């Protein structure tokens, strides 16, 4: 992929990924074919900050877990009163990292 496209992608989407993965993403994009650019650009990445807000207001019902794609954990959270409230609070601290992790997995899927 062209250097300018890679730089453009990193500049606009860096907030969606863990900072230590940025060099790896840079390399992955450089090695990828130009035809993948549209796929990568149209990938649906979850904004970690939005996920935190969803987790604060809807975490008790498991909505945050449903949104990041962890359907099973979402159901578990919904049925257990948000893990008797403990899991709800723990997820306020975990959900941003999980959203970035899922974004990276989605990026890998788009590239390979």
């Amino acid at each position: 992929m062209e250097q300018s496209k890679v730089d453009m992608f990193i500049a606009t989407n860096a907030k969606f990924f863990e900072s230590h993965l940025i060099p790896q993403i840079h390399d992955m994009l450089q090695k990828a074919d130009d035809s993948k650019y549209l796929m990568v650009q149209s990938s649906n990445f979850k904004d970690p900050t939005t996920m935190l807000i969803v987790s604060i207001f809807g975490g008790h019902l498991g909505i945050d877990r449903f949104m990041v794609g962890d359907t099973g954990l979402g159901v578990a959270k919904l049925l257990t009163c948000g893990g008797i409230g403990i899991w709800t609070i723990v997820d306020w601290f975990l959900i941003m990292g999980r959203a970035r992790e899922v974004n990276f997995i989605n990026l890998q899927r788009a590239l390979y």
Partner: protein
Amino acid sequence: MPQKKWLYTLVIFSCLTGVLWACWNVTHYTPINVASGADVCLFRRVTGIPCPSCGSTRAILHISRLEFREALYTNPIGFLLAAGIILFPLWILYDLAKSKNTFYHFYGSMEAVIRKRWVAALLIFLVAANWLWNIYKFA
């Protein structure tokens, strides 16, 4: 899908917490704390409205006393939770002892089933209906 090690740790920890919570409630059971109930529910404390799973602890208390009709009336989710907190840790221990991934595969296949549109719609309807019933009962 979460990693196997993380999922197993989470399920065992959650189920253990659930068992301890249920045991504590069974041993400290009084008509007063059952009537007030749901003290740990953040949703109920903040909004004043019971959440879809409010009453599950009381349902498990009824199950422990073999009062199945009362348990069903209090919250049917209690049956799922009672089965889950007993069955899942045993299943995971079997997997770990035999070095198998049966629970992990089960989790993956259940997730795939739940993601089907009609299954999801059915489950959402059931949870919403149970929630409305909960609000009617406890509000």
